[in-house]
């Protein structure tokens, strides 16, 4: 009995895997995989050395490309037996380093799990393998008037397995939900090689609901091998309103007024003036360049519903002091309105050699404070930042512009980003709304959570993976790291940037 109270050892410090024997590992894996599915020469491993967070690179020991679930089971059993770290990988578009390889580990690529196993139009669900691209699901469902609702901007490339692992969102998630809200069932393999199904084809499953634990778990609890998603009927019509404001706070208040009026728009996005200028130059969406902020508000549904909602939205925007309001007249214009917003990342890439995308979420009413603080940080770090914002749900994407070839720039950008994350927490929000913690935000986890929660997370991890082999070093910091980070923060000149604000 008493031993059950003991803390799992691996939550305290990073586990040392330097004893892994590559030759022995490759030999065991070669019994399960054909040569084309087992890469271990350095030149073959290079393409896997980073994900969308390209600043961090690490070549793994081995990459495996299984084609069947039975192979995944065998691979995980081998890794468990030899105590080798395993990092699952989808398309590698993650922005927080979640799929970054482990130096002494295996990268388990799901690239060959690319089949759509079935679309059941009557029951409105699709069963797909984890390597299927997000957009491919909607394309397969389109002939039935259905689609898969979550639409991350990376949807042409990112995989559904990665979406599940990150609980990804998109511009329509205020109304249609995140990945978790659009899943029925996830099938996965534990590090012990056990096949487990989370959720069910019904709307709930018996016992504890482990689906929300696995969703967003960044490949730390199980390797996903099959996903059953809900499909949503395509709205008959969508229309978009574009509004300009001479003040960002007014634009923020307009967002609050729309929600307070009982409207849940299909999309509600904001961009500040520098972001607007950057994308306008790039895509010519017709955005007003003199506005301090622009809002995009989309309404979808039946033609009657859309007409009613657009009328109400328009009135609210005008009452909130919008300097201009335009309603898309046709589908081409609606897509043009969106083209600018969707091009925000590439536009940032065009005006700056590098950019660093942040992902904090804050209560919407704190938006003005956050934007003012970011302006002050731009001066402090002598670095520009442009802001795009999922305004409806408070998820902010400041894009810090820098040049990695300039000495010190990378480091400055990281410090700038860290300060934004810390402020997100101080304002009552979170360090990540949709991109995940990965390795990128691991230190700031120590600001958002206290030791008892960090310990609880390690216990959840141990419930699935007692040896800590799945994606070690990601998402949940060790207690040791938090202690160090705490000391480092204490040593800074302004240890408590906003002492008046309630800590979360």
């Amino acid at each position: 009995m008493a031993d059950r109270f003991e803390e799992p050892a691996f939550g305290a410090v990073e586990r040392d895997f330097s004893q892994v024997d590559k030759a022995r590992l490759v030999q065991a894996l070669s019994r399960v995989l054909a040569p084309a599915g087992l890469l271990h020469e350095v030149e073959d491993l290079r393409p896997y050395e980073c994900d969308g967070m390209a600043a961090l690179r690490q070549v793994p020991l081995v990459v495996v490309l299984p084609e069947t679930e039975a192979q995944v089971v065998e691979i995980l059993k081998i890794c468990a037996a030899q105590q080798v770290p395993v990092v699952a990988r989808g398309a590698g578009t993650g922005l927080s380093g979640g799929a970054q390889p482990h130096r002494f580990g295996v990268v388990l690529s799901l690239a060959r799990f690319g089949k759509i196993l079935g679309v059941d139009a009557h029951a409105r669900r699709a069963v797909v393998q984890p390597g299927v691209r997000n957009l491919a699901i909607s394309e397969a469902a389109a002939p039935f008037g259905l689609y898969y609702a979550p639409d991350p901007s990376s949807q042409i490339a990112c995989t559904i397995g990665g979406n599940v692992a990150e609980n990804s969102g998109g511009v329509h998630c205020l109304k249609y939900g995140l990945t978790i809200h659009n899943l029925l069932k996830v099938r996965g393999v534990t590090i012990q090689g056990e096949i487990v199904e989370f959720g069910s084809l019904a709307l709930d499953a018996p016992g504890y609901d482990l689906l929300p634990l696995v969703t967003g778990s960044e490949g730390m609890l199980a390797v996903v091998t099959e996903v059953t998603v809900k499909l949503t009927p395509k709205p008959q019509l969508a229309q978009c309103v574009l509004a300009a404001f001479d003040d960002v706070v007014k634009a923020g208040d307009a967002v609050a007024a729309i929600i307070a009026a009982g409207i849940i728009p299909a999309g509600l996005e904001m961009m500040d003036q520098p972001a607007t200028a950057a994308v306008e130059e790039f895509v010519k969406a017709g955005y007003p360049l003199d506005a301090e902020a622009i809002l995009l508000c989309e309404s979808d549904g039946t033609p009657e519903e859309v007409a009613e909602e657009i009328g109400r939205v328009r009135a609210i925007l005008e009452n909130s002091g919008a300097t201009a309001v335009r309603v898309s007249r046709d589908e081409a214009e609606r897509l043009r309105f969106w083209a600018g917003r969707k091009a925000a990342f590439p536009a940032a890439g065009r005006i700056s050699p590098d950019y660093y995308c942040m992902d904090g979420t804050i209560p919407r009413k704190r938006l003005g404070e956050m934007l003012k603080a970011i302006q002050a940080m731009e001066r402090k770090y002598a670095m520009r930042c442009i802001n795009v914002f999922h305004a409806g749900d408070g998820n902010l994407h400041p894009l810090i512009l820098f040049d990695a070839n300039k000495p010190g720039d990378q480091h400055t950008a990281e410090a700038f980003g860290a300060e934004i994350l810390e402020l997100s927490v101080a304002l009552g929000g979170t360090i990540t709304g949709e991109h995940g913690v990965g390795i990128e935000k691991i230190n700031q986890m120590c600001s958002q959570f206290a030791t008892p929660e960090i310990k609880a997370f390690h216990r959840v991890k141990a419930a699935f993976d007692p040896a800590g082999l799945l994606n070690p070093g990601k998402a949940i910091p060790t207690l040791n790291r938090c202690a160090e980070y705490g000391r480092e923060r204490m040593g800074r000149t302004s240890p408590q940037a906003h002492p008046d604000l309630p800590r979360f």
Partner: protein
Amino acid sequence: MDDLIQAWSERVRQAAAGGGRLRIRGGGSKDFYGREPVGELLETGACRGIVNYEPSELVVSVRAGTPLAELEAVLAERGQMLAFDPPHFAAGATIGGCVAAGLAGPRRAAVGGVRDFVLGARLIDGRGDVLRFGGEVMKNVAGYDVSRALAGSLGTLGLIIELSLKVLPRPLAEATLRFDTDEADALHRLNVWGGQPLPVSASAWRSGGLYLRLSGATAAVGAAVARLGGEALDEGAAAALWCGLRDHTDPFFAGELPLWRLSLPSDALALELDGEQLVEWGGAQRWLRSERPAADIRQRVEALGGHATLFRHGDRHGQCFHPLPAAMLALQRNLKNAFDPAGVFNPGRLYEGL
């Protein structure tokens, strides 16, 4: 409030050290639910009140012992609601009990279940530690999503002290239609409608009558009514119907015959089990009054891809909830041990040994 939380935390710590058992009770409105409750009573009623409510942020934070009726009244004043439509079952039901039971009402299939609206939680775990997960924002992927996993855990993972929930605006317009039809046709129609952009917010079928509720913008509801036909119910009759189904005051739920809750894929065929039946959630939830042996019912439901809960009036010493596959049961045991290693909270309420 801090004193109360500290006192509870101390009580949990002592129970854990001394082999004590606590039976958490909100309003006690669901005492009937799950396996037989055991342990010393810990009532949450003193931990009540709304901590933060921001209608324009669509978030409310509330202490767990707050009566559901009180919370819903505050939301209604601002034209908002708990969209998962929690059943009350009795006057004293609390929001903590509601989330712990994880039960949702008629709107479930349209908008989501309890877990879909949980944004954050504070709880006391089985070590007496006070933990906070999630938060008050809509999107948050920092750390494992423990707060959502509390929905339906029946108080076996910890004592919930505070919850942050997403709220939604009440629909501007609502209409309920009735159609004469049999079970197979009703199931077919419900799935067909589900695949169309219609503002369906609830559905039910019972002996010959299919009921459909439409909610949303005035124009959208009007257009759907015109398109679907059927016979419109007046407002009073519609409210009585949906409340009766939500709170189980409908005559279907009266009497002492075992009541089974069957959770199925919406397109699962007719059950073909004898006993009176009520279909909800577009076909995904079906209630059955039957004395058929549990094994028969479970076998049939499993074959249809679902699971069966003995909801009321059965043997509460056996399995109320559907048996789990071995690998899943092992994970669930591990999770229970992670939060409550001494087995303090509601032992056995969910499964034996959990």
